[in-house]
Structure formats: C-alpha cells, structure tokens
C-alpha cells in the first residue's frame, strides 16, 4: 500500500471476521466499543476539543469577554511591541534551531556509527532529554553567569583569551600627570617628543599594591646618555601622596613594562623593557626627535565576561541550551534510520567508485530524508511552543527581549494582565502555525495504513 492509496476511506485493516458469536447483535458490538471509548472521548471532549473551540471564539471578544471585537485582539498581537518581539524571536527559533539540531543529530549519528563505545556516547548526549526544560534552564543559567570566576562559559572563554591576549601587568594604571596621553586600557604616549640625551619620566598611578610587579625596587631617575634616551616608569605614589611627576623616596619602579620608541613619522623603531628600579634605555640613536610610549599590552583589561543573559545575547543563549537538550533526540532517531539503510546499497556506491563523502551526500542523506524530515518537523512544533526554558534561563530583566509566543500567551493571560481576549488570540495564532503539521500527520498516517 503506497502513497497512491489515499482514498476517502482508508482501508485500516480488513473487516472483522464474519463469524462473530451468534446472537450478538450489531448494536451490542457498538455498545461494547462505545464503552471502551467513552472515558477517552469524554476527557478529550471536555479538556481538549471544547476548550480549543472556546479559545477560538474567545479570541474575538474583548478582555472582559462581553464585547465582540472582530479581529482587534489579533491586531494588537501584530502591533504591540512586546508581542511583535515574541513573534520575531519565535521566527528566529524556527529558522535556526530545527536546522541546527537536525544537522548536529546527523553528524553525531554518522560519527558514532562505526565506533564501538557509541552506546556510552549516545547515552551522554541523550541524557538532557530526560530532565525538565526548567532544570536545563537552571543549569545553563549557572553556565552563563557573567563573572568568568563563576560562569563556566565565560571561564572557558577567559582561559582561551588568556593565551591569545594575556591580561596586562597593570590593568588599572592611569597616567599620574597630563604629560602621558592615551585612552584607558591602551598605549600611553609621552606628549612631548624627546631628543637623544633627554630623560623620559613616565609616572603611573592607581596601581593597587597587589598589582605592583614582584621584585620592584625603589625607583631611580636614570642619568641622561648623549646618544640615547633613558627613562623611568614608576608608581608615582607613596603613602601620604608625594609630588606628582617627581621620583621620590618610597616610590617603586615598575619592572617588566614594555616601552616603545617611535620616530618622528610615528613608526615604531625599538622596544625596551624596564628594570627592577623602573629604568630603561634606548641606545645608539641618530639625531632627531622621538616619542616614548608605554605599550598597550601593559594595560590590557582582564576579560570581564560576555553578558550572555543581557538583552543582546539572551535569545542565542537560550537556543544553545535548547540545542543541548534536543540534539540527543535527533541523534537517536537518525541513528536508527541510519542502521536501517541496507548495507549493500552503500557498498554498491563505493564499488562504483564513489568517495565516502559522495556516498554520504548522494546516497545516505537522500535515503535518510524521511527520517530527517520527521526530526525537523518535530523540532519545529516544539520550538513553536518553547516556554519553560525561556522562563528559566532569562532573568526577569531580559525576559521581554527573550519573549516567545507561548510565553507571551501565558504572561498576557495569567500574570496580572489577565487579558483573556488577547491571550486567546495568541493561542489561536499558535494553533494556526502548527495546523500544517496536523495536515501532514494525517496524510502520513493515511499513507502508512
């Protein structure tokens, strides 16, 4: 029975045997069937069918339910900013998440196909499916804490960043006098150009004791050298204050600071590193004027953490959590489909000279297409109804930005606003969105039977 046999009355199975026990009338058989069906029909009628119809009708009435307002509630749905955000976000969800989850599921299924310990792997990836989306949300809310000392995701980013661009030795330092100019966190340049034979005096302040590099000694203003520029970079501060711009007793040199020397065209021509007493020297310089600067690396700010739960990134952040939950579902279903592909078809392709990749794209994926579409559609339905995880990952401050249709429906109807008119309209809208899937399901069922 193939797709061609979609008739008005799908042949579910053959009619029951004619040799029903004698004396049992047709009515009696119907009565028995009715008895078996009654509890289900009553429950479905009162809790599903009737309310669904009520909701559709209710969506045409005002909040109080005493005025027929035509499509006013739907109009509100498409004109209120908060609800529009919900629709936009949900559109993003549908556009991104099912595709990602299905692809990841396919990749995992293929990767594990010929691995002996695949069961262990599948169990691990599938596990999040068993826990509540609320708990998954809590888990990811912890993962997303902004402080890299606490939030796992930001800690991982900080660890990678620490290798690529390490934190500066003096992230908080500021110039002690207006002679040094530059933006906070970047290179500080001595305003007046220097000629060889002059001494650069680079005072920094706002350095906490803990940040003073190890081995720092009393700062010294070095003597001038005729063919070079010498200088000192030091902590222009001592208990009690001290005089700005003057190297005084009790003020420490800042060792290990990188200094840059630039010629008059602004080109960097040399670097030097300060010694324990803060002194440095650029030697054997030609005549001319030079500028001295403290390298920006010194002031590189520590990684403050990505604000995952803020208004900008909240929706992608929740999507990642959701993909983490659902990837296992896609993987398990697709793996079952993969196992059902006849080996000889793949062998034939390979014998004909197809590469692994060609076999995968030209043979495996087309054969998996029905399974892939089931996974995809399942995800679309679930993503349209996404609710719990948004509520638990998004803190109340960014819930408006993370809004989705199901959450909007709930908030409009039950959290204070109690506008059952608009609430019903949102629910009806959601229903309309899943309606095509309903048609699809019915068609698939009829084909199967």
């Amino acid at each position, binding site marked *: 029975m193939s797709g061609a046999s979609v008739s008005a009355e*799908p042949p579910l199975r053959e*009619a*029951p045997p004619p*040799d029903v*026990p004698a004396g049992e009338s047709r009515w009696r*058989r*119907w009565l*028995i*069937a009715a008895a*078996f*069906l009654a*509890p*289900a*029909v009553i*429950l*479905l009628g*009162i*809790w*599903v*069918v009737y*309310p669904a119809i*009520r909701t559709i009708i*209710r969506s045409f009435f005002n909040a109080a339910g005493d005025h027929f307002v035509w499509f006013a509630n739907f109009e509100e749905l498409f004109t209120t900013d908060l609800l529009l955000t919900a629709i936009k976000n949900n559109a993003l969800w549908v556009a991104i998440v099912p595709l990602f989850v299905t692809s990841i599921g396919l990749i*995992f299924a293929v*990767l594990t196909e010929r*691995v002996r310990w695949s069961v262990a792997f599948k169990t691990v*990836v599938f*596990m*999040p499916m*068993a*826990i*509540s*989306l*609320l*708990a998954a949300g*809590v*888990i990811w809310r*912890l*993962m997303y804490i902004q402080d890299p*000392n606490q939030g*796992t995701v930001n*800690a991982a980013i900080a660890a990678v960043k620490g290798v690529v661009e390490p934190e500066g030795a003096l992230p908080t330092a500021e110039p002690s006098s207006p002679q040094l100019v530059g933006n906070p966190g970047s290179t500080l340049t001595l305003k007046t150009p220097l000629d060889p034979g002059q001494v650069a005096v680079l005072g920094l302040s706002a350095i906490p004791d803990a940040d003073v590099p190890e081995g720092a000694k009393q700062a010294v203003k070095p003597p001038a050298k005729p063919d070079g520029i010498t200088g000192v970079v030091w902590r222009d501060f001592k208990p009690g204050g001290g005089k700005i711009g003057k190297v005084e007793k009790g003020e420490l040199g800042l060792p290990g600071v990188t200094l840059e020397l630039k010629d008059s065209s602004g080109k960097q021509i040399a670097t030097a590193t300060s010694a324990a007493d803060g002194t440095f020297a650029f030697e054997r310089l030609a005549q001319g004027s030079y500028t001295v600067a403290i390298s920006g690396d010194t002031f590189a700010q520590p990684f403050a953490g990505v604000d995952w739960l803020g208004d900008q990134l909240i929706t992608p952040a929740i999507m990642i959590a959701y993909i983490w939950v659902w*990837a296992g579902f896609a993987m*398990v*279903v697709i793996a*079952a489909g993969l196992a059902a592909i006849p080996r000889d078809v793949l062998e034939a392709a390979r014998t004909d000279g197809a590469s692994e990749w060609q076999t995968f794209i030209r043979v495996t994926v087309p054969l998996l297409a029905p399974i892939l579409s*089931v996974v995809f559609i*399942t995800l679309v339905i679930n993503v349209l*109804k996404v609710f719990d995880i948004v509520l638990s990952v998004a803190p109340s401050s960014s819930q408006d930005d993370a809004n989705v249709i*199901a959450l909007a*429906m*709930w908030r409009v109807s039950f959290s204070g606003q109690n506008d059952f008119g608009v609430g019903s309209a949102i*629910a009806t809208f*959601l*229903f309309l969105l*899943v309606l095509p*899937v309903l048609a699809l*399901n*019915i068609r698939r*069922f009829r084909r199967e039977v």
Partner: protein
Amino acid sequence: MAVAEAGVRVAPQVVEESVARKILRVLAKAPVHLLLVFIGVLWLIPTIGLFLTSLMSPADISAGGWWQIFSKPSIATLESYRALWENESLRTALLTTLEITVGATVLPIVIAALAAYAFAWLDFPGRDWLFIIVIGLLVVPLQMALIPIFSFYNAVGLFDTVLGLILFHTAFGLPFAIFLLRNFFIGIPKDLLESARIDGASEFRIFTRLILPLGLPAIASLAIFQFLWTWNDLLVALTFGRDVRPITVAILSQLSEFGSSIEIIAPASFISLILPLAVFFAFQRYFVQGLLAGSVK
C-alpha cells in the same frame, strides 16, 4: 640453518607489518574517537557543573565556579541538601510532584489502552474518522485549553487541586497514548484474538488477559514518557495551581531572586532531575523504542 634463520627473520617482519597496520588503523580513527570524547565531555559539563555547585557552600559559590572542587575537594559539603530536606515547602513540592506524576501516568494509560483496543480490534461506524481526529488532536498546543480550563476549574473547584492537574495532563497525554498503543495493539496476531473470541471470551476479558499482557512493551514506553512529561511539567502546574505546586514551580519561584539563592536552586534542581534520570537509565530501551514509534508530538 640458514633457511631457519631466514624464516625466523622473516616471521617477525610480517608480525611487525600487521602491528604497524593496526596502529595505523587505530591512528586513522583516533581523530573520531578524540572528537567524540570531547563532545561527550562538553555535553556532560553543564550537568556536572550543577551537581558540583550543589555541593558547595554559599560562600564558596560566590568565591568561584564549581571547578574549585577539583583543586580543593574538601569544600564539598552536603549542607545544602540537608537544608533542603529541612525546607518544608520544598519537601511538600516533591511530594506533590510525585502525586501528580503517579496519577497522570496511570490514568492515561488505562484510558488510552481501552480506547486503543477499540480502535485496533473492535468494529464500529466512524472508527477511522474518529482515529484521524485523535491524530489531529496530537498537535493541538495545550495553550489552546489554558484559558477555558482555567475558568472551568475555578467554577467547579478543581483549581489548585492535584486532581485538576492530573485530569489536564491525562487529557493532553491521551492522543499520543492512544496513537502509540493502537499502533502496537494492531500488530498482535489476529489468530490469538479470534480463537479467544471463539472460546467465548468477552471483549473485556480479551482486553485484560490478552491485550494488556501482550502490549506491555508499548505500555512501558508510554509510562516512561507520561512520567517524564508530567514530572517535568511547568506550564500546566503554573497555570492551574497556587498552593498546590510541584518542584518545577517551586524552583521557578526561587529563580526570580537568583544569585542570592543558588544554594537552594542548585540542589533542588539536581534533586528534581535525579528521578527522571534514574528512570531514563533504567528503562532507556523502552524510552528509545517509544520515541521511534511516535516521534510526532
């Protein structure tokens, strides 16, 4: 002598070659294994993070992340769990969750099994159409029922009751349950039923003595699904309960003042997911079978 020597010399060469090939083969696959280990660890980290956080004191939580425990295992403590156990409202919430879950698992299975039997093996007019309606109801979002049922529950006194929550879960679990069981029941050999009928067994007797025992694998799958859905539910309980609240709602209410109460939320969340996980591990086979049988909901 020379021949023997040559033979001896040749033999290890052959072995060596196959060992080399073996190593090569393993090496060729190594990237895949490494990648899978990496992904597996990646997938585990969030849950492990929650668990280890739940073992830390509030002071340690604010001092740094859960990975501290690896360098200082001594900071691990069950203090949060002890506090949780003494927290009356959370204990009640767990108990409520259990009540709702048991009711909303048993009831739909019984009702759906009856209906599924009728759909599979009884003959009555309009059977196919009725079944198509059931399939249609599979995708009706439960948001469609929230508002009318809210009013209905308030009118008949089912609002804020365990029974009200059970009935709602039962009704919305039925379409999938009927679909799954009917598809399983229809595969039961026809001869078995016919001979039972000829022997004069009543339909109810056939149902209890033949269909239910034979349908046990499908019923097991269904029970696990229904259990997980209701245990993990938030939306329904949030809408139809106020004082009657399962653990998910209790955690959510703590969540609104996040940061200050991680030491409650982390262990409570972990407790809430430990039972579903146990069920999942114990009955993984049925879970996956059920998933494959009806991944439509």
